[in-house]
């Protein structure tokens, strides 16, 4: 059997080997990585046994950087070079940063495209780079613990993240050399962690009070499909604000002058510890030492509840609004999932329970639940569970449109449309002899372009001069399964075309990413070649294995004997190339085998559609195989 001889010496991956895949919760305050090991999804600790990696990076003058708890210890003493809560800056332009106010204490430098760079001792860093550094730390932790190279990762993002923010997250992964199997909405991941995708159909509320953000998401599970009905929350409300309320009170009680970042961060840190104590005790004592002056104060649970109650009430109001947006009542909610460390605060649990009139799920550590859910999906997507029926469907959260005459938005893809999706619309020229057309891609629900978020602009040039209204320009929007948009424009009479993978004007360009990747290899030029070869081999393997699997599954059925033989020999050819070290030859081989098997691949698709339909009723279709 030729097919079984393929896992030859020299080929690193045998078919059906368990693939190493992880779920990553890239959080505002903390990040985590989890993986399914022996059938159980668990978060992976670092060498010291810590599961949470503080999302903090400190850049040093020597050019090196620290990530995590160690970096965080410098948050008070070296605030300019210690980057916290970088998630808030992802996919944001300079103009957005101003609205963040005092929350971003860093010094910014702006490039031509309006992309903000944080000035650090190790040079200017974009938010994408900072996130990539956090991701790298998580990946190396996982690879050490799992003992091998990762196939890919599922990375979670808030359900409301717009295209720019999702793209920035994916860019960070690219920069960290991670294959993204899928960007997954955080609330969906939390629901998956509790196995709610296997459970009763109905409405699920995910209450996520993290360190710096509060999100409420209303999901509907219908025949195994999750749909985000609405999202709400407050991007400037989180556990940190609970700390801040306590810190303000302490400062007031002890007459402490909060001047500068250092004192305020120190007080925040102390308040945070007291808050954690108060989750299990009725009172906490806080010892302080500021500018050599030692002080102490005791805070009771009742006092703390009183201080944070307005904030908790704010989250409940947001829950009410989210329910209204989703057109469901509180009593329609079947399950409530608690996410985020701040949901350990007893008052939070109490208020949530009261509002939804049911016990929320708290069994899984609320800090870990999102990463755990992501790892379960990563395991499925990596192909480790071919029989799993799990399918997480997504919709786009905001409408995608195009600017038309008069600064108006014409929606091309409406919000809540299932993705992936492609939709085309035709436009025409408005002036005689017009040879170019500017295309402005926007996201949002409002009528005026100025009220929507601008995603990208590009120009279709080379339209042959015609009378106004004679040219036919078809603009196609394609949104992939991660919710990322590509736009394509084509003039139909002449065939002139132009396309763009939408990059936010203040995001990183592909060239910049390539440059950064290159510079990260600068220290090891050989390393770079090795990596390029390795990547090409992985590509080849993926194609080989999937074709071999396909041939076993239905090759005899869908191919005639000649086609079958031909394909087999083409596969053999690529295996030979792949075992060599000629990068270009492997690349060509992959292209050749892809081409040779295109027809087979589309037959397989059609066949699986036929099978899916057959499951229903052969009679109605009036045809069978």
């Amino acid at each position, binding site marked *: 059997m030729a097919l079984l001889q393929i896992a030859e010496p020299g080929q690193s991956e045998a078919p059906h080997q368990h*693939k190493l895949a992880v779920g990553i919760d890239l959080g505002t305050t903390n990040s985590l990585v989890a993986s399914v090991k022996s059938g159980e999804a668990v978060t992976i600790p670092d060498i010291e046994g810590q599961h949470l990696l503080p999302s903090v990076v400190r850049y040093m003058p020597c050019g090196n950087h620290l990530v995590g708890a160690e970096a965080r210890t410098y948050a008070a003493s070296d605030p300019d070079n210690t980057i916290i809560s970088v998630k808030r800056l992802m996919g944001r332009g300079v103009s957005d940063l101003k609205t963040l106010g005092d929350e971003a204490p860093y010094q910014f430098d702006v490039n031509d495209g309006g992309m903000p760079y944080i000035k650090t001792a190790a040079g200017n860093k974009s938010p994408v780079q900072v996130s990539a550094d956090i991701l790298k730390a998580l990946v190396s932790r996982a690879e050490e613990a799992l003992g091998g190279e990762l*196939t*890919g990762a599922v990375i979670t993002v808030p359900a409301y993240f717009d295209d720019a923010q999702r793209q920035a997250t994916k860019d960070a992964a690219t920069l960290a050399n991670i294959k993204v*199997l*899928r960007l997954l909405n955080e609330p969906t991941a939390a629901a998956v962690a509790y196995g709610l995708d296997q459970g009763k159909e109905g409405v699920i509320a995910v209450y996520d009070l993290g360190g710096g953000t509060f999100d409420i998401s209303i999901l509907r599970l219908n*025949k*195994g*499909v999750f749909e985000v009905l609405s999202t709400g929350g407050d991007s400037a409300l989180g556990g940190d604000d609970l700390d801040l309320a306590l810190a303000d009170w302490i400062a007031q009680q002890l007459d402490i002058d909060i001047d500068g970042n250092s004192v305020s961060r120190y007080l925040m840190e102390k308040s945070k510890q007291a808050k954690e104590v108060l989750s299990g005790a009725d009172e906490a004592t806080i010892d302080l030492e500021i500018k050599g002056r030692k002080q102490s104060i005791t805070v009771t649970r009742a006092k703390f509840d009183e201080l944070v109650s307005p904030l908790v009430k704010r989250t409940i109001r947001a829950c009410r609004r989210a329910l209204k947006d989703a057109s469901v009542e509180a009593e329609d909610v079947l399950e409530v999932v608690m996410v985020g460390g701040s949901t350990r605060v007893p008052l939070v649990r109490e208020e949530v329970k009261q509002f939804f009139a049911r016990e929320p799920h708290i069994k899984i550590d609320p800090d870990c639940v999102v990463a755990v859910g992501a790892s379960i999906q990563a395991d*499925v*997507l*990596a*192909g480790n569970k071919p029989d799993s*029926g799990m*399918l*997480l*469907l997504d919709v786009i959260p905001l409408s995608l449109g195009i600017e038309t005459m008069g600064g108006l938005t014409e929606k091309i893809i409406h919000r809540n*449309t*299932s*993705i*992936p*999706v*492609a*939709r085309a619309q*035709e436009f025409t020229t408005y002036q005689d002899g017009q040879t170019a057309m500017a295309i402005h891609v926007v996201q949002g629900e409002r*009528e005026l372009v100025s009220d929507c978020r601008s995603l990208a602009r590009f120009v279709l040039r080379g339209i042959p001069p015609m009378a106004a209204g004679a040219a036919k320009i078809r603009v196609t929007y*394609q949104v*992939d*399964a991660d919710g990322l948009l590509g736009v394509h424009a084509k003039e139909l009479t002449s065939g002139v075309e132009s396309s763009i993978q939408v990059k936010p004007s203040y995001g990183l360009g592909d060239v910049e990413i390539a440059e950064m990747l290159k510079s990260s290899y600068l220290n090891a030029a050989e390393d770079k070649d090795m990596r390029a070869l390795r990547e090409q081999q992985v*590509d080849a393997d*993926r*194609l080989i294995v*999937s*074709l071999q699997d396909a041939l076993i599954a239905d090759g005899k059925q869908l191919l005639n004997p000649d086609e079958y033989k031909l394909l087999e020999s083409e596969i053999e050819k690529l295996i030979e190339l792949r075992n060599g070290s000629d990068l270009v030859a492997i690349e060509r081989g992959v292209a050749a085998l*892809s081409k040779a*098997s*295109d027809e087979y*691949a*589309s037959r397989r*698709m059609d066949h*699986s*559609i036929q*099978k*899916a*339909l057959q*499951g*229903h009723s052969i009679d*109605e*279709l009036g045809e069978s195989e």
Partner: protein
Amino acid sequence: MMDISKNFFEFIGLPVSFDIDQSELADRSRELQKKLHPDRYAHLSDREQRMSVQYMSFLNEGVATLRSPLLRAQYLLLLQGIDTESESSTPIAPMFLMQQMELRERLEEIPDQDDPYAELEDLLAEVEGMLKALREQFAQDYQEGALTAATETVRKMQFLEKLVVEIERLEDRLDG
């Protein structure tokens, strides 16, 4: 590369008709989603992933088209070679246009009424009623093969659907 040559009805496995069982449409599309979704191909080669995105996009577009009565009607005509999207030469009965102008005037005056919400609701109910009648009309036209009449009916539906959007917009604006 990919030639998705089937029409939406064939692709999803439903008879080509204006009358569609929505729950059957939902069931079938879900079955197909399970087969075609890119998640099923995430571990396979780029080619498979690309194909699945194309198929899945086609499916999603198909489901959206067949789910909406107006889009479904337009699509049925398109299959008969009549493009109602770009063509606007179909004559419309003057009576209908008069009625449209009156409805629009009513809409414009709503914000000044004592109880704009009640007025809005009345108007919406009336327009929905007209749409329902037009859908029945279209089903009949189409079945009888009266394509010119069916095209005019679709044009009327377009007018009214647009009006519904405007009513909803006004509602948003009143909410504030």
